[in-house]
């Protein structure tokens, strides 16, 4: 793991009217690092993600991505800069097949002089899709089937494979396994491992303690809109019970006394 900081937030704050959903979040993510964001419902996890991905505009604070301060006007900006997000509501078009969804809005085309009527290069997209699925070890036997006919796990895998296919600089997953069965969850976790092996950084929002301890290097705990702990779990001295204590407010880490 390099010490190259890929994402940093300074004093990141979001108020919805009088509600302080996120207050002064200072956060750092190094290249290749996998971080889990945990916290109770309403602790500010999703709000935090929404500020980084440009879905909402922050009230205050700075986001530094790849060494440069950024101001995304929308999720597209963030995606173009290299932040791929798997949202809780999957942004998939049900009636299209897997390559179509993977390449939606950035199709490989031929005959580009035809403007909006330029031709789709189905074969190139199919090959890139197969390569992307191989990279993530996702197996969807018939990628030409429409998404509508797929299980929740398969759909989730397609959404995640989309991020992996495009060599994103940072992947964010907001509770990717919340609605999945055991096997499907295993599949998604495998993709996350593959990303780890490929050295691609990840922010994982999750409630699943087992998953977090198996997959990530560091846990950042949110409580009532503030970061209350930043725990390196690779050393093995931190247990699930410790994390629960931080989540519930029984403990607050040194340096984060503001959140108490």
């Amino acid at each position, binding site marked *: 793991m390099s010490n190259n900081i890929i994402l940093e937030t300074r004093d990141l704050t979001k108020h919805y009217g009088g509600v302080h959903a996120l207050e002064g979040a200072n956060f750092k993510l190094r290249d290749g690092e996998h971080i889990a964001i945990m916290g109770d419902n309403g602790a500010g996890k999703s709000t935090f993600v929404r500020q980084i991905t440009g879905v909402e505009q922050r009230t205050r604070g700075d986001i530094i991505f790849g060494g440069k301060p950024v101001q995304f006007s929308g999720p597209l900006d963030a995606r173009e800069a290299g932040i791929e997000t798997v949202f809780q509501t999957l942004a998939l078009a049900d009636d299209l097949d897997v390559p179509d969804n993977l390449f939606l809005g*950035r199709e490989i085309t031929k005959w580009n002089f035809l403007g909006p009527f330029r031709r*789709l290069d189905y*074969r190139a997209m199919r090959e890139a899709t197969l390569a992307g*699925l191989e990279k993530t070890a996702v197996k969807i036997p018939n990628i030409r*089937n429409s998404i509508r006919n797929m299980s929740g796990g398969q759909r989730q895998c397609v959404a995640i494979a989309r991020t992996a296919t495009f060599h994103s600089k940072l992947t964010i997953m907001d509770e990717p396994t919340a609605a999945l069965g055991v096997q499907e969850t295993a599949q998604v976790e*495998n993709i996350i491992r593959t990303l780890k092996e490929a050295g691609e950084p990840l922010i994982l929002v999750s409630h699943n303690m087992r998953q977090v301890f198996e997959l990530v290097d560091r846990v950042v705990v949110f409580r009532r809109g503030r970061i209350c702990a930043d725990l390196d779990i690779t050393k093995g001295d931190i247990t699930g019970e410790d994390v629960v204590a931080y989540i519930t407010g029984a403990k607050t880490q040194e340096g984060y006394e503001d959140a108490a």
Partner: protein
Amino acid sequence: MRAAPAIRRIIGRERLEGENMADQTSHGIGGLTYDKSKRAWPNEANVFIALVLIILAFEALGQILPYMDNTSMLFDFNTNRDGTILNVARIKIVILQVSIIGIISLGVTQVIISGGIDLSSGPLVGAAAMIVMSFGQTELVNGQINPKAVFGPWAFDLPVIVPILAGLAFGALIGCVNGSLIAFTRIPPFIATLGMFLICRGISQWWTKGQPVSFPTEQFAAIGSGMMPVVWFALLAILLFFIMKFTVYGKHTYAIGSNEDAARMSGINVKRHKVLVYMIASMLAAFAAVVLSSKNLTAQAGMGQFYELYAIAMAVIGGVSLTGGRGSIVGTVLGAMVFGVIQSGFTFIKLDAFYQLMAMGTIIIGAVVLDQYRQQRSMAG
């Protein structure tokens, strides 16, 4: 073909891992097995089967009904007539009578696939026909100056491209207004195009204060003479088929109808695309007006009545889902054929037009009910 080894490799590994799936706990496991029974059955096949069944039903009625003298609707076994066992004359009529509305239904199909609806196409045909014919008039009728002249002498005997371009420009304008209203003010497509329905009917009556426009140039009359409407319908159907299936435009139309938010998140300019979709639909309707007025050699303010509904019906019978995202040009063409066969069939068995309307209504409702049922089943399965 280059993709084949990669696919084989994946399928091969699939099989390998499928066999000892129970032992496998880490990489590459998941509930992703290939079930052939879940492979999508093309919707167009259902429409085709329906078309065949309807033809068979009319053939059976021709044999059963006592007053029909065992006649056949689409077959003629007296091969001396034109060397085929088909009743070519009737088949031509079946296709000819749906061709002009068929052209409209191609445009309506892509509107419905994008998740919208276009009610304005019928009156647009009326208005466009009036405008088009005004630029397509000939100077001398039986040695006299054209009695139906709309403009002064400058508008007589213009090259045929002028009326066509005038019609397409009018269609583009109406479509642009439709699309802009829907994309930018976010009013429902039903309301926007319902308003445009009345506006266009008004324009068609205002253009000549209700007077018909007649006596086109020979060139203009050639556009829709004989079987030409069928030729236009076929050419445009092929063009639209390629556009919807093989271009970015088509893919984005499906994506918007399927999940507009996902389309927006994926970077598609949804607003601009919708304007384009409605423009193309209206330009196709305007071209239908060119063909229709040429075929009839006259334009009247009341032309195109109920065409919008018939065009929507053809698309719906052809399996285009009113919720958007699903359907195809092939389906719509088959839907148009179903429409034509039913119309001709009722004439063939000598039933009155009002039964025709009742039957048509039943079939449209039936098509949507079946579609709903199929959709629920595929969601469950």
